[in-house]
């Protein structure tokens, strides 16, 4: 029998923005929390993303659930504003707006239709801008390529490292224990009830486990089916703030290329980095020359000024998608004590509220917001989604937008 290293009320797996949020909110409710992170705080997707806060990510996929999604992302923004009042670390959250750019007439018409649906579902913020209006908001864009855009002024960005570290620090102040460089070998379940987690030198006993490992979630809990998606990211040298400064651009449908300027002036650039043949390993964090050139040149067609700017570093991050594009947040059906918070294409817009919901469920058995549409077990028993191979952009674009 493996030795029991320690006992906890809740073990949170994953040291990203979502895991540290869960740890904080659970500690806030007086729970004895142990957070285990395989590498270091924010070493996974959190530390590799552009830090975008986008209240309604993507286009067609789940457009019908706009009102449902806005409840969560607006609540998320409210919580982050509270954080800013009493957290020691400033995680640089700013609402500078977000432009979702149409690069041809058909995309512009799509945006027009999408906005009508969004408005009909109570979204009073979203605005449609034609080319002139878009260029007034962000003059540095390439007029020959821009057709128009969708603007939400309440979107913004933040420093993802600092968000995760801020939540982790506040959780520690409330007694939570953060254990890094500790890989979970398995979630220990006996007759469908969580006993704790197994790590290299023993067991941490706990009646509750929160799986907040996003892209890696299915490795610990198969049936929840979170698909890892490889994203390439780059950062430029520091530039003065570009007035006015809505940031991130989503274009080319759901396969977003993006550019977002941080508080310290660097531009974070991002784009899809499909896994490579022959083995299509989505966790492959090495970088390939052709994908760096592709993402750079695509963004430079949209934002030509950046082509005169030096790229300082490039890296790869692993996002988590679910087959239907909605996150998986909720108790794992059939396993008492296992709570899932994973599958976020836009994690920074959901992290704080997901952590709070996890703590509500574990402490009160119910949640302040309805999580019925995000039941982690909704894919159990269904045929596993075969990610289209070879994984090329156009095929995946249709796959994601039209659903499995």
């Amino acid at each position, binding site marked *: 029998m493996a030795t029991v290293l320690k006992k906890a009320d809740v073990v949170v797996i994953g040291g990203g923005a979502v895991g540290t949020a869960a740890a904080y909110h659970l500690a806030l409710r007086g729970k004895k929390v142990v957070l285990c992170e395989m590498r270091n705080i924010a070493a996974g997707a959190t530390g590799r993303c552009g830090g975008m806060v986008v209240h309604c990510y993507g286009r067609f996929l789940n457009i019908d659930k706009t009102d449902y999604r806005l409840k969560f992302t607006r609540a998320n923004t409210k919580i982050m504003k509270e954080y800013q009042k009493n957290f020691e670390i400033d995680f640089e959250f700013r609402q500078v707006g977000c432009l979702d750019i149409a690069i041809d007439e058909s995309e512009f018409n799509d945006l027009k239709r999408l906005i009508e649906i969004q408005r009909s579902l109570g979204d009073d913020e979203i605005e449609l801008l034609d080319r002139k209006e878009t260029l007034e908001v962000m003059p540095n864009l390439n007029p020959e390529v821009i057709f128009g855009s969708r603007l939400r002024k309440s979107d913004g960005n933040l420093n993802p490292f600092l968000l995760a570290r801020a939540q982790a620090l506040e959780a520690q102040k409330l007694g939570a224990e953060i254990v890094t460089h500790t890989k979970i070998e398995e979630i220990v379940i006996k007759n469908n009830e969580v006993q704790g987690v197994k790590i290299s030198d023993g067991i941490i006993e706990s009646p509750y486990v929160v799986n907040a490992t996003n892209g890696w979630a299915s490795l610990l809990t198969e049936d929840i089916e979170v698909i890892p998606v490889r994203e390439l990211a780059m950062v430029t040298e520091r530039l003065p703030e570009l007035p006015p400064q809505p940031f991130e651009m989503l274009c080319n449908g759901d396969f977003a290329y993006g550019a977002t300027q941080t508080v310290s002036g660097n531009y974070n650039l991002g784009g899809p980095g499909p896994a490579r043949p022959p083995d299509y390993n989505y966790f492959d964090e*090495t*970088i*390939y*020359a*052709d994908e*760096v*050139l592709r993402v750079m040149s695509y963004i430079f067609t949209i934002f030509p000024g950046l*082509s*005169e700017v030096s*790229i300082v570093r*490039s890296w790869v991050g692993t996002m988590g998608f679910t087959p239907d594009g909605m996150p998986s947040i909720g108790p794992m059906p059939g396993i008492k004590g296992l709570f899932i918070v994973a599958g976020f294409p836009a994690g920074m817009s959901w992290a704080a509220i997901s952590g709070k919901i996890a703590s509500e469920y574990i402490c009160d058995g119910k949640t302040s917001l309805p999580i019925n549409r995000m039941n982690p077990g909704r894919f159990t028993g269904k045929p596993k989604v075969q990610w289209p191979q070879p994984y090329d952009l156009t095929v995946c674009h249709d796959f994601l937008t039209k659903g499995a």
Partner: protein
Amino acid sequence: MKTELAIIGAGPAGLCAAIEAAKNGVDVTLIDENRTAGGQLFKQIHRFFGSEEHLAGIRGFEIGNMMLEDTQKYGVKVLLNTVVWGMFPDLKLGLSNGNMVSVIEARRIIVSTGALENSLSFPGWTLPNIMGAGAAQTMVNVNRVLPGNKVLIIGSGNVGLIVAYQLLQAGAEVIAVVEALPEVRGYQVHASKIVRMGIPIITSHTITRAEGDSCVRKAEIARIDDTFKVLKGSEMILDVDLICIAVGLRPLAELCWMAGMKFDYLPQLGGFVPLHNENMQSSIEGIYVAGDVAGIEEASSAMEEGKLAGIAAGISLGKIVKKQGIEIINKAKEGLRALRLGPYGDYRQESKEKIVHHYYAA
């Protein structure tokens, strides 16, 4: 663009690797981000140590000129003003020259990107005219401009001692060389030379503060005990207008990290060093490392390691007959062994053996 052997960094190691490989029929592309090749050679106006095979007794920049001629003689393709911004797994290199970006594919790669000077933090350390000793050496010997007239040097290793002498040669007044440990770190001959020329070497002392505005004006040094604690009351204020930091170098191994090489942490060789075997093959098939990037030593060892890597790459490409190649390799290894002896060499030999051991154990 394709090449058989791409070499990144045209310093002593890169130049020797290129020459040795090209001399034996390998198609070599030597890449360097600077306008001229040579790396540290062209700021080293002193004579090299070692033996005849190490070109001892010849000044660094003369050796540099000789090697530049050899690169032309043996048909090495030299790409200057070209930055390697990425080393990718399938032996591909991302190049940029001006705003022209391209990718070159190689069958073998040698990384000889050299080293960067360590800095030292103390109140005021970011003031203008507080710079690396190697930086001051570059300004004086390459750019022919004297950044300051009253110089304080921190660190009494060979770099600190040699730069003190070379600043004096350029007409500056060197106020003192300050060393934290109780004894001088560099060669006695370098120390004797500057002491007889009136430059005091103050051991068991360190810099505790620097003051200035648009340029450093004052430096405070103080005695420290063997736990590096400042002894109150031992402070001295010196009037300076240039402070040179000579507290060691570390390998410039970003490309090695990017390619996913395995590393070892060896402070005696400058910190994180890419694992390699006795023929400079790194932990990634087809990629070799040579010179300071594979562990901080001096230019003479960098040259020998360059030869080693150049020939090893040539053999593995099938372009150099094994028997003949092995001869050159053994000669280079003898050269290295001779350099890694004595109080200044033993610890390097031991560390290098540890790296090779970890290479095979990894």
